[in-house]
């Protein structure tokens, strides 16, 4: 029987919507107020799906998952600027969709055994983006 394991973390960043291929004026025209540097508290639910190990009763050791999330997400993003402290948003603006997709791509590399099933990013109280393994 497959079991979903979800761990939730929170991080705070600054960001601005900006595409490197556009001028300052074009970015402002396209993204409006989001082209200004601003910030968000993000909450991230990371869900792994798998069989429980018959000996340990675990899908994954949560200590290992915590370490992966620290290394992959927290150390990169928490109290950082998404545009200037990473090179992940040079081509795509850090919308909730793209932040969630980038985290999905980074975690797909880092989470062992294809266990990653879903990331859900809460960007403020009113917007949630979910990225899940394709149908």
């Amino acid at each position, binding site marked *: 029987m497959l079991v979903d394991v979800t761990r939730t973390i929170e991080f705070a960043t600054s960001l601005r919507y900006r595409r490197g291929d556009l001028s300052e004026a074009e970015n402002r025209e*396209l993204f409006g107020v989001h082209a200004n540097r601003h910030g968000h508290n993000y909450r991230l639910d990371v869900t792994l799906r798998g069989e429980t190990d018959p000996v340990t009763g675990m899908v994954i050791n949560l200590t290992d998952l915590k370490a992966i999330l620290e290394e992959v997400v927290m150390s990169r993003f928490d109290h950082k600027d998404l545009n200037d402290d990473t090179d992940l948003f040079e081509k*795509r603006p850090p*919308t909730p*969709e793209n932040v969630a*997709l980038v985290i999905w791509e980074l975690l797909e590399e880092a989470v062992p055994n294809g266990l990653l099933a879903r990331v859900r990013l809460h960007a403020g109280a*009113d917007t949630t*983006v979910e990225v*899940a393994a394709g149908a």
Partner: protein
Amino acid sequence: MPTVRKTRSYRFPSAHVLASRELSGADNDRIFGKCANPNGHGHDYGVDVCVEGEVDEATGEVAPTHVVDAIFDETIRARYSHAMLNDLPEFETEVPTAKNIAKAIFQALAAPVTERTTARLASVRVIETSNNHFEVRA
């Protein structure tokens, strides 16, 4: 490619009466209990609207948030917020239970989401109280 869904969460207050015109007063009281009070009662409804699709490379969005918000405001909030739901045409024959509200909102939003964005409506969740919520999916 992974699937990407974006959910916007809205709130509005509405009044309703849970009673069917096809039932007697006694039957409505028996089935709907205190919710059948003919003078009505109300809730602060929460509605989560989820759209699904490809992320547009130019904007970085599945659907522009301001367009989804505008569709919701024009189609639902303008009619449902601070209103008696039983007075709306969609609840003329259907009882405005949270399940029927979720279905009505889904039906009202599906076409404009398709027409005005490149995404599709994936689900509508109506949160009636902290104890109950109802979700309709495509």
